């Protein structure tokens, strides 16, 4: 992809998001009559920011011509998508079966996915690291982590 194309896509996205947010600030609750003894209404500051937002985005769009011909470093989209999907699955799993089990599964999966092919390392790190983390948080730091439906603390 060319850098100019990239910047135009980026700028257009930012304009769209900014426009959506501006539209949001025009809803009645941002100008609520609650304001009487508070000085400025809640939409005041965000709108100042959105103004700057539009201005800067337009400058970026205009400048996309300057970098038009350069190429963006190619990315391995497949690997990226895989790791994002794995991370999302990890969070979803953690909600269901607790931190420890989900982490062991995830750690092993991501290491295999990234191309590690040494079973002993995978097993050792995949089990011991989540176990150690879990122990430190739950027992030493006393920070509760998501639990599974089967056990009290794990």
């Amino acid at each position, binding site marked *: 992809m060319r850098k100019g194309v990239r910047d135009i896509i980026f700028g257009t996205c930012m304009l769209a998001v900014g426009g959506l947010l501006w539209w949001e600030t025009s809803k009645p609750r941002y100008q609520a*009559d*609650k304001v*009487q*003894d*508070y000085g400025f209404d809640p939409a005041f500051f965000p709108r100042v920011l959105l103004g700057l937002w539009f201005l800067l985005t337009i400058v970026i769009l205009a400048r996309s011509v300057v970098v038009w011909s350069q190429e963006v470093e190619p990315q391995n989209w497949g690997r990226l998508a895989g790791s994002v999907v794995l991370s999302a699955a990890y969070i979803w799993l953690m909600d269901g079966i607790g931190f420890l089990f989900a982490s062991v599964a995830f750690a092993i999966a991501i290491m295999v996915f990234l191309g590690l092919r040494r079973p002993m390392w995978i097993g050792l790190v995949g089990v011991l690291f989540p176990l150690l983390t879990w122990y430190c948080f739950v027992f030493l730091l*006393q920070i*509760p982590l998501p639990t599974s439906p089967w056990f*009290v*603390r794990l």
Partner: protein
Amino acid sequence: MPALSRRSFTAVALATALLATSTVSAEYPEKPVTIVVAWAAGGATDLVTRALQPVLGKQLGADLVVKNITGAAGTIGTAEAARARPDGYTVLITPTGPLTTQPHLRDIPYDLDSFAPIGRIAVTPMLMMVPPSSKYQSLQNVLDDAKANPGKVKFASTGAGTLPHISILGLNKAASIETKHIPYKGSANVMKALLGGEVDVFSDQAQLVPKYDLRALACWSAARLPEYPDVPTMKELGFDFELENWLGVFVPKDTPQAVVDRLSSALSATLQDASVVAALDKLKVTIAHLGPSELAVFAKKDYDRNRDLLKDAGLLKK
């Protein structure tokens, strides 16, 4: 699945309650109990909770885990507690704000009746205070000045819907004065503004007065405070107000009665424990215990009073 287990749990709890209350302790608690604190670690509510934690745990016979879920004036954590399974393993320790004022201000997924009370821990009296260098010697001075210069006397609060804010709204209405209201993030920020001369008057917890050498003009409690015998109450000054902050323990509604009883007896025993009394004393928190039924009445009264005040000020949610 949750509905089923809730029902079976209720059945078991009911059965044991009918047979003998002493066996309840064998049933509940059988795993760690989570205490939700809707404020940051190290805040006032959190510190009291952590002071109670070891003894309350011993009284209950279970490990207690404190979970700080912060944000949006305590409503995020309180909502999380309201959503929890009503099995006694999620307990909320909260000041008055999230339960008795926030539900009036905006749409939140809980209300006061989403909770069943366990007991009140403490009451924090409120004083109206001015900096030592202030020209105001009495409430009358403040009112006279506010009448002479409408919208000029600067009152600080710790944000919309907080007790300091409600005290301003109440006074504005009762004395028919107009003041300038400046909200700050917390009482420490207000102290800086008060000592630096940015604002004139503030009403909040009484212990701030000796801490920062301030002058107290009025007391928002029903009777004069023993530590400040010279400070008149609002009632004596001719305003029918009673505002105070309190700290209570709640569980989600529909929690089995046996569990509520178990928790409330553990709480009342904890609040009589010498080490807890000493720890809370260091935090300048005065224990004022109330049982479940008294707290229910007390909290409802606060809830209704705040709604009326906020309604008059036009802040009630639509």
